């Protein structure tokens, strides 16, 4: 089966939605494609997405970044503090600056002094975790509603909006019709699900989320379409070759880490300002590490990171909105595996077919046998998925060649 690129993309989008629709009609469980689930998934995806992009910027410039979590912690604290003091937008700006502070520390240690990049990242996480505790002690203790582990609540939030014409948004005071919601309520095969997904993505949107998602095309455009991006990537792939062509590798790695810190800080800011209305200790909850996983999952590409973050965010969203619906995901996996098996028969790839049938049988059994999946185990899904991807698809992953290798100017001549 030879399809054009555009047709393949269309199939890639349409087939899962059709499968979802079949699952919905079969099991009578609406939650998988309801706009509530999708909306929650979007909100949960964005911090992970930004953490993944933070990792991408750092590693593309040649520096491993285990410290994303720490940079995010700085982001949540500075964001929470700034938003409490000066309002949400200033808070987001502070969050970005706080993350960049983390990036700068990481850069000074690894790029200036050639400290082992993993060690520096781990130490940064410790420093951030304990540093913000000290600052909370000074800034929040004794304030109404504040304490050593949380900030006082913010009084205003980033504005939210509905997209006009399709999701009932307002346009110059005129309330436009809400087409998607009525389509979702119709419950028709495919169309109802597509409408649910789109409505979830377009209603009650925070501007903070929109800016976060815009980081994906921005990252792609800067890193793959500009001179700066080419140079930055070259200092991660082959710094010595880049240097012989006059590229300032040291400076670019600083740039990479500062952008990385800024993105991670913004991710933290979203958690403290958009997803909630105060800073709380432990707000990041390991999302920096999930971001790292997403970066690997997405093969160090922006669209891949977006895919990984959506997947992880979606499972979180389903868990949050309708934990009972988790088991219907097994039905989805079973059906998808059947489809893959059929394709394998058509393409005559035996091993892939056998694996697909195997997966399908297991997933079908899981759907029938498991009443409810323990929440404690579903939490580890992103981490497990990352290990499985690394174990099975590591041949296809292509990390930046020299990420992790310390670089000193002029030493390799």
């Amino acid at each position, binding site marked *: 089966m030879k399809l054009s690129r555009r047709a393949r993309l269309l199939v890639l989008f349409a087939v899962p939605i059709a499968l979802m629709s079949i699952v919905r009609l079969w099991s009578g469980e609406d939650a998988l494609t309801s706009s509530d689930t999708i909306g929650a998934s979007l909100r949960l995806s964005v911090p992970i997405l930004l953490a993944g992009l933070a990792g991408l910027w750092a590693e593309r410039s040649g520096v491993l970044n285990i410290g994303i979590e720490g940079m995010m912690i700085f982001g949540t604290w500075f964001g929470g503090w700034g938003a409490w003091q000066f309002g949400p937008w200033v808070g987001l700006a502070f969050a970005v600056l706080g993350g960049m502070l983390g990036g700068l520390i990481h850069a000074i240690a690894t790029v200036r*002094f050639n400290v082992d990049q993993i060690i520096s990242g781990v130490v940064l996480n410790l420093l951030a975790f304990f540093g913000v505790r*000290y600052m909370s002690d000074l800034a929040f203790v004794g304030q109404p509603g504040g304490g050593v582990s949380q900030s006082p609540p913010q009084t205003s939030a980033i504005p939210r909006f509905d997209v006009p014409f399709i999701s009932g948004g307002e346009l110059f005071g005129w309330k436009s019709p809400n087409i998607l919601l009525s389509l979702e309520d119709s419950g028709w095969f495919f169309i109802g699900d597509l409408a649910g997904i789109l409505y979830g993505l377009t209603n009650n949107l925070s501007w903070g989320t929109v800016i976060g998602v815009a980081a994906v095309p921005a990252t792609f455009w800067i890193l793959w379409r500009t001179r700066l991006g080419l140079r930055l990537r070259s200092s991660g792939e082959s710094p010595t070759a880049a240097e012989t062509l006059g590229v300032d590798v040291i400076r670019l790695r600083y740039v990479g880490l500062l952008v990385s810190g800024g993105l991670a800080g913004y991710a933290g800011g979203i958690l403290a300002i958009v997803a909630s209305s105060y800073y709380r200790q432990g707000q990041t909850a390991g999302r920096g590490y999930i971001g*790292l996983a997403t970066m690997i999952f997405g093969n160090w590409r922006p669209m891949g990171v977006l895919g990984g973050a959506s997947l992880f965010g979606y499972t979180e969203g389903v868990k949050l909105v309708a934990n009972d619906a988790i088991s219907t995901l097994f039905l989805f996996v079973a059906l998808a595996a059947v489809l893959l098996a059929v394709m394998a028969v058509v393409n005559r790839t035996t091993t892939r077919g056998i694996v697909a049938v195997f997966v399908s049988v297991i997933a079908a059994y899981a759907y029938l046998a498991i009443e409810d999946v323990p929440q*404690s*185990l579903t939490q580890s899904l992103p981490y*497990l998925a990352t290990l499985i991807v*690394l174990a099975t698809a590591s041949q296809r992953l292509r990390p930046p060649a020299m990420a992790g290798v310390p670089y000193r100017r002029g030493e390799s001549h």
Partner: protein
Amino acid sequence: MAKNRNVIDALPRPVVTLLSSLVAILLALGICGLLLLVTGKDPIAAYRTILETGLTGNKLLEMLKRSTPLMLSASAVAIGFKMNLFNIGVEGQYLFAALIAAEFASRISAPPVLHVLLTLMVASAAGAFWASIAAMLKVTRGINEVISTIMLNFISLSVMQWLFDNYMRDDSDGGLRVTTTKIAPSGQVPDIVDGRLNGVWLVALFVVFCYWLIVFRSKFGFRLRSSGLNSSAAQTSGIAANRMIVVAMLLSGAIAGLVAMQSVVGEEYAYGPQATPTGFGFAGIAVALLGRNHPVGIVAAAMLFGFLDSTSAVLQLSGIPNSIVKVIQAVVVLTVVIVNEATARYMNRRTAEQTAAALRADKVGA
């Protein structure tokens, strides 16, 4: 200045190492002093309080007690470092081991000493088991242990929560601090100094001693260190790198399994999400870095961290947020790794210069 260089140039390597660590600690104290000053606290008063309260008898015992998990965790991390492996998974390994060992100890009955020994062995085995997953993933699938151990830390937490909630929790107490069933007296380790220092401290010292014996004084340790320094050179001289990876990871996990034992068999006599202390996996990385993976260094660094921790309660009383103690620790590690790197660079240059000078002298002499 030139004269100073000459003085330092003449110092033997261990002295330079020690000096650089001291410089790093002073630098960290300076940075944190500045932080205190900027945030409106008196750094001199803070440091004086730390010294004055820390150097009293009871606080010194507390220091020893607090050093126990740090020494164990640091040894676990250091054994990995010696093989050029970065075991970030000590956190997940020791918590998993604590749960399994506590549950095991509460279910068996055995004579006093044997009961404890069996518990410690189960803890080690559980830690080694969890570490073996990362080792196998690295050897068979080539997955970097840094990523796999980070992921396994989180997987460990959720597996533990599932095990604990469904099979191992004991609600008979009725309290909010739910734990596993309490271990019988035969499985409890007595205190050396009543209420202040537990016997597990001696176990930790013994483990550090074993770490020294195995890594620095055995044929196996030599193989391990040479693999860590240059894996391909070691491979050509007949040392199987993959085998070394597996063994080092298992040893690291086995030591990691003991990290929470002071709490499990010495204090709480059970495992509990609130009762068992967390975060020692990462603190151990800090201590191993500060101690430069050397047994003496690890003990000294663990004591330093324990000393700082022991003073935190008093600091709070005298109006200085005790969270500064943890900040000092984190900054110390940051300055230590930076100063270490600078020192290593200096030592390399010094060796090169001195060798060149010696060669020149040799030529002139001939």
